[in-house]
Every structure is written in structure tokens, then in C-alpha cells.
């Protein structure tokens, strides 16, 4: 059998490299301020909810649509939790369950109109966006609800247990280090497994030196990240939520029948129908899922702010949609990855964070974010065109 070579597709890692590049540029601009342990920790905590929303939004984008209502659902769910905790002084779990339930209901509401009445998602979610925001202001009577109790705040601002040891002038959390070791081992293990699979089925192998470079870069990033967290206060609870979600959804989208059906639907709806896929059902669940994840993001946001505000989540839908597109998802649907969306979310997050540290106003930040979105999608589209 002839030896086939399969060089790493740089486009696949292009956005990852862009992420690193943006981070380094701001490191220079801010004189290393954004490299500090406190800031790395902030990056995780500030972007938790965008990552959660981007994961859900990717499924919508895969179908070739978007959900404009997520920012408002975030606000509705957050304020419901706030009211239950502050006005009724009920148990934290009641508040969480109620918020998730409301998210589920809004998802069912949107999903029903989209999947079973065939109303365009853009219209349905534009409606939920307006309705949700109005509902939030009504529920909160345009007031901020707070402060929220500490056990609830933990979700958004708490840390996992730590084992701190003194190293030099500061402390280092051993738990973070152990997790970093586990992640590294898993990364190397999965790479070896993928090589073995490729060999078994006679697929083209990627040259070893390329894999080594790729994995070294990844390992470096992982260790940089975890050591910074270890130097600060250990692993944020939000990181755990994000990791679990990303893991679950990456698995669903690549290894389950339901996940692949979303891709098939986005790629060609008629062909999917004639292949036995109930496309209405797929649409319905994608939007139900988005509702629940919006609720989760609402909980995390309210917890981090220790309050529920009527303006919460304003514009989050745009951040989530932008994350997916920056992460390489196709606007027409049918192509995109969870990991891409997460990287996209962090590109947005690092930009926000870097520009804030550098002292640019939020107005300027919006201009830059818009330009980055346009640039990323333009590069993506142009590079695809060259291939064809």
C-alpha cells in the first residue's frame, strides 16, 4: 500500500493560533497585565456564561439558524432565581430548579413554533427576545434584586477545594496541578489512540513531527493556564461547569446519532428527511436545549454578580452567535464544532478583557469586536473559495 501523508490542516488550528496571538498582543500592550494569575482567573469567570451559550448556540447555527432570544432568557431565569432567593428566601436548589424549568419552558415555546408550526427561527426568537426582556423588567419592576446568598454565589464565583503549598513568594494549589497532569496524560493518550485507529484502518497518517509540535503547543497552553490558576485561588467552579458541558456536547455532536442528525439537517434538510430523520424533532430539541443552557448561563451570571438585574444578559445572543462564526461554523449550517465555538468565545473574551485592561471604552470595544467577527468570517469564506 502506498504511503499517504496527511499534513495538519492549519485552518483547523488557525483560530487557535489567532487566540494565542491576540492574547500575546495584549500582553505586550498591557505590559503583561493580562498574564497575571488574577486576570487569568477573571478570564474564566467572565467568559463562563458566554461559553455556555456558545455551546447551545452552535447547535442552532448547525441547523442554519440562530437564537436571538438567549440574552433575554438569561435575564428571565436569573431574575426568577433572584426573586425566589431574595423575596421568598427559599432554598438555593428551588431557585436553580425553577430557573432551569423556566429555561426549559421558553425552549419548548420557541421549539414548538419553529418545529411544528414552521415559523422562521429568526422571527420566533426575535419575539422571545422582546418578550423575555419585557418580562424581566416586569418581574423585577426595573429594580436590581440582591444581594444573593453566599451558597448561590458560589456557582458563579466559588472555587473548588484547594491544597495550597508555599512556593517561593506565593502559594501553589496542588489540586490544579494534579488536574493539569490528568489533562496532559489524557491528551497524549487520545493522540496515541487516534494514531492507532488511523493505522488500523490504513488512513493517511500525519507526520510525527507535526503532531509533536501541535501537542507541545497544547501542553504549553494547558500548563500555563493551570499554573496561573494554581497561583491564584485554584480552580473556579465555573471552569468545572464549562469543562463538563464542553465534554458532553463535544461527544454528542461527534459521536451520537442525535448529534450527527443536526449536521445532516443543516447540510441538506430534504436529504435528512428522506433518510429517516425527523427534522421537526431535531429542530424542537435544539431550541429546547438552547433554553435550558440559557437558564444555566442566567444562573451563573446572577451568581457571579450576586444579584439579578433587568439589564442582565443584554447582547449575549450576539456574543454567542459571533463565537460560533469566529469558531468556524458555517452560516448556512451543517458545519462547525463545539471546540471551535469555545475558542471563538475565548477570542471574544480575551479581546474584551485585553481592551478593558488597556483602557479602551466599551464603545471602542464593540467596534473592534465587530471588525474581528467580520474579519474572521471573511478569512474563512475566502480560504474555502480558494480550495474550490
Amino acid at each position, binding site marked *: 500500500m502506498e504511503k499517504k501523508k496527511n499534513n495538519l490542516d492549519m485552518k483547523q488550528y488557525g483560530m487557535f493560533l489567532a487566540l494565542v496571538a491576540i492574547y500575546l498582543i495584549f500582553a505586550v500592550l498591557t505590559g503583561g497585565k493580562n498574564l497575571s494569575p488574577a486576570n487569568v482567573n477573571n478570564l474564566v469567570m467572565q467568559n463562563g456564561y458566554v461559553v455556555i451559550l456558545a455551546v447551545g448556540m452552535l447547535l442552532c447555527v448547525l441547523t442554519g439558524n440562530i437564537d436571538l432570544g438567549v440574552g433575554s432568557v438569561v435575564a428571565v431565569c436569573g431574575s426568577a432565581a433572584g426573586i425566589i432567593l431574595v423575596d421568598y428566601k427559599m432554598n438555593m436548589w428551588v431557585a436553580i430548579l425553577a430557573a432551569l424549568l423556566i429555561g426549559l419552558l421558553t425552549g419548548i415555546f420557541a421549539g414548538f413554533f419553529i418545529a411544528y408550526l414552521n415559523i422562521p427561527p429568526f422571527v420566533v426568537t426575535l419575539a422571545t427576545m422582546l418578550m423575555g426582556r419585557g418580562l424581566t423588567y416586569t418581574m423585577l419592576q426595573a429594580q436590581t434584586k440582591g444581594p444573593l446568598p453566599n451558597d448561590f454565589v458560589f456557582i458563579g464565583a466559588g472555587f473548588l477545594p484547594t491544597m495550597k503549598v508555599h512556593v517561593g513568594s506565593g502559594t501553589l494549589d496542588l489540586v490544579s496541578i494534579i488536574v493539569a497532569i490528568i489533562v496532559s496524560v489524557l491528551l497524549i493518550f487520545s493522540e496515541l489512540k487516534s494514531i492507532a485507529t488511523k493505522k488500523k*484502518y490504513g488512513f*493517511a497518517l500525519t507526520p510525527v513531527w507535526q503532531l509533536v509540535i501541535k501537542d507541545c503547543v497544547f501542553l504549553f497552553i494547558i500548563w500555563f493556564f493551570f499554573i496561573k490558576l494554581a497561583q491564584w485561588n485554584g480552580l473556579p467552579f465555573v471552569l468545572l461547569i464549562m469543562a463538563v458541558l464542553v465534554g458532553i456536547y463535544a461527544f454528542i455532536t461527534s459521536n451520537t446519532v442525535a448529534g450527527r442528525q443536526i*449536521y445532516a439537517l443543516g447540510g441538506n434538510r430534504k436529504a435528512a428527511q428522506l*433518510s*429517516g430523520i425527523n427534522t421537526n424533532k431535531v429542530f424542537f430539541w435544539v431550541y429546547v436545549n438552547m433554553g435550558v443552557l440559557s437558564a444555566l448561563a442566567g444562573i451563573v451570571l446572577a451568581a457571579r454578580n450576586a444579584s439579578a438585574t433587568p439589564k442582565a444578559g443584554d447582547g449575549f445572543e450576539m456574543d454567542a452567535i459571533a463565537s460560533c462564526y469566529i469558531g468556524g461554523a458555517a452560516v448556512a449550517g451543517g458545519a462547525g464544532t463545539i471546540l471551535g465555538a469555545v475558542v471563538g468565545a475565548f477570542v471574544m473574551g480575551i479581546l474584551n478583557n485585553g481592551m478593558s485592561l488597556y483602557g479602551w471604552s466599551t464603545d471602542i470595544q464593540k467596534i473592534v469586536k465587530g471588525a474581528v467577527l467580520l474579519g474572521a468570517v471573511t478569512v474563512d469564506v475566502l480560504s474555502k473559495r480558494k480550495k474550490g
Partner: protein
Amino acid sequence: MSEYILEMNHITKAFSGVKALDDVNLKVKKGEIHALCGENGAGKSTLMNVLSGVYPHGTYDGDIVYNGETCAFHNLKDSEGKGIVIIHQELALSPLLSVAENVFLGNEQLKMKGVINWTKTRQRATEMLAKVGLENEDVNVPVNSLGVGKQQLIEIAKAMAKKVELLILDEPTASLNDEESKNLLDIMLELKSQGITCIIISHKLNEIEYVADAITVIRDGKSIETMYKGVDDFTEDRIIKAMVGRELTNRYPLREGVTIGDTIFEVKNWNVYHPDDANRQMLKNINIKVKAGEVVGLAGLMGAGRTEFAMSVFGHSYGQKISGQVFMNGKEVKMPTVKDAIENKLAYVSEDRKGNGLVLIGDIKENMVLAARPKYFSKHGVINGAEEIVASQEYKEKINVKATSIEQVVGSLSGGNQQKVVLAKWMLTQPDVLILDEPTRGIDVGAKYEIYCVINELAKAGKAVIVISSEMPEIIGTCDRVYVINEGQIAGELNKEEVTQERIMQCIMSHNRKGEK
């Protein structure tokens, strides 16, 4: 001035190092119909794209001499300005706009700059339609309210409106039935008498034989030879030999070693109404039976209701108020959804592989396993990736899909290979009954042969195969028995010994007469 209206000399065009055209020469005489033949991927469309400026001057080598002057077209507008108009396989009409507006799309009749003169548009559109035999059409109706055959003619009318001198038709009859095709070819002959030169690309050799004055054969990016009417032998076999570079002794492979078993598929009293109009009955009392190992054809004109029948049976994918019974292996089965149909071991390969069959941005593996996945390649909703790879590799080799690997994106494959992928997708669902709707539409002779071989293999394996085709020779060449369908009803049943094109047409005609009484 030379007798040639067009000379393309030593055209070489490469895509990232791969030569799609290699020193191609094409000479077209003024006022003739010149056919361009070759297998899919031979380079016919690339050559036409070079000619029309889609690939601008400078991106290819060689030169184009048109009406005695060397041309350097940079885009379609340049070539259209000289009277060269290309009509692509896919219709370039805007479906919801009126016929008149479509005829002058991009070439609007104006009152003043930017303002449309609607009276003139309608008036001149009517004139143009008369030139293509559509003098009685209303030019104000949306173009999608007309059939594909008429839409194709409107494309030609659109070309006429641009003062065309050289008309290029890329597979104009690919989606037309025999009658519509004949009509279109006659229009071409009519245009010829008006002094318009035509280049036609077609896979239908009988049509080429009918209209062409000269044939240039292209194979693997090279011009092989040019044959002239009256000088060279114009038979199909001769053309095929030049196209494939070898003699295809039999276009329909012999089916041997098949034992025809019991009836395993039967549809009784099948009635279906139009999906948008509950009073319009599309199918009336259709009864068909197919035995294991038997290949049964559904013949008929386009729009006769064959596709509608297949799709309504296959998970009620078409129509409403569906009534009737379906029996599989003697047992009555209900199949209200596609999933039920797949579970009951029925498969339907759509006539429109790009629109209804494939996820073009997906790779070969994803497309092949899509329908079979829930049942054969997953457990509790989790995919068994390794088995999918093994199975798609196996089928890729089994039915000879030409691709670098199963990871190749389906959109980049040729039509024949795409069709093989769709076939594999349905074979993987392990059906007992397969309905193949236009299984060889728009694919080249070699790939057709391979698909007929697959049909034979399926019959040998004891499957019941139903072939729907608008190409009568194909139905006659591949089927053991033929049902003729006309206007939603069975117009006749013919067995292998008695089926000929004439008999099929007779069935349709006599059925039409019965309807008129």
C-alpha cells in the same frame, strides 16, 4: 474569412497543477449544431467555461478565435457581448419572477437608465417565446408555475433576447422526458435554420445522432477526434468507443444466476392526493407486485406520477389523503414515516441526488451511513465509529466509488460517484425492496454500466428492485417486467419479451384516448 465561427486552439487549463484540459482543439462551423461528447469529468464543461469567460483570459493557455478575431474574454458579459450565450444544466431562472421578467433578466428593457419598461418587456418576451414554440404562454405567470421542459425553453428565449449567435447548451435535456426532449431538439433545428450556431453537450447519444452536424469527442481533457455527418459513421457504438476509448459491447450487463422467488412487495389500491390541493387526485388505484430477485420498471412520461408513487409509499413523503395497502413479505405494513419505511426494509433512492439524496458538504462516510446509522451503527444513540469506517470502506470498494478516501467531501465527486454513494447509503440499510428513481440521470456511460451491475447484484441477492426511468432503453435493458404509468394510473404491464419503446408509447397513447372519452 474562414468557414469557422469559432476556433479554440491548443487550450490547456490546469487547476493547481492538474490539467483539466490538455491541448484541446475545437472548430465549429457557422450555422451548424456541434455536439461535445465525453464522459463526466472529461473536461466538456471546463472547455465551455473557458469559452464563455467564466475562466478569464490569462488563466488558460491557447487562443480563441471567434468570427475571425482573437478574443480575450474576462467574464460572461464580454462573451455575451459578442453573442455567445451559455445555458447551464441548472436553470438560471428566478422561480418567483414572471416569465417576461426572466426572459430579460440581466438584459432589462428600459425606459430610461434604471427604470424598467414593463410594456416593452411583456411585448418583447412574447416575441421571444414565439421563437421557441411557446407562442401561447402567458408571460405574466411566475416561471415556476411551468414545467421543467418549458422552463428550459424559456432559458433559450432568454438567450434569443440577447441576440445570440453561438448558443451553448449544457445537457439541456437532462431533466426532460422524451417528448419534451424531442420538442427542444426540434427547436434547436429551427434555430439552426435561422442561422444560429449551437454547441450541445449531452450524454444522450440518440439525441446527438438526431441533431448534430459534427461531433467532437473529449476524453481525459484531450480532444480525441471530430466526426462529421455524412462523412463519418455516426452510430452510438462508434461515439461510445471514442468516448471511453474501448468498445462497450453491451451497455446493459447480462443478469445471470438469479432465481426469482415469491412476491415480497405488493401495493394495493394506492390512492394519493396532491399535497397542496386535497381535491386533486394524483394517483388512482395503483396495484403493483414485485418478486424477490426481480427488477421491475416503472415507465412513463415525466409527471406521470412515478416519483409521486414511490415517495408516497416511502414513508408518506409525498401527498395527502393516502389510502391503500402495502404488503412486505406477505404481511401488511404501515409506513407513515420514513423511519418506518427503513425499518420495514424499504429503500428509496431519490431522482434528485443533490437536492434530496446527499449532504454535499459532508464526507463519503457520513453520507453512506446516514440512513443506516440508528439501526446498524449505534447502540443507545452512541455511534460506533469504527464499524462505520469499516462498512463505508467496504462499500466504497464494492461498488467502486472513485475517491481518495472515505473522508472526501461528496460535493467534490463526479455525478456518477455521487450516485454510487447514494446507492451505498441505501444498500447499507439492508433493504429487501429498493426503489431506484432515475438511477443514472446525468451520469456518463461507464458509470451507468457500473450502476446496472449493482442492480444485477441486488437482484442476485434476492432483493426486489423497482427502477423508475425516463430513458426507455434503460427500462427495456434492465427490467424483467415493466409497468407503464400514465396520469397517475397503471396504463399497462409488459413483460420482458414484449417490451419495446413502441409498446410503451402505445400503452400511454391508448390510455390517453381512454381518458378523453
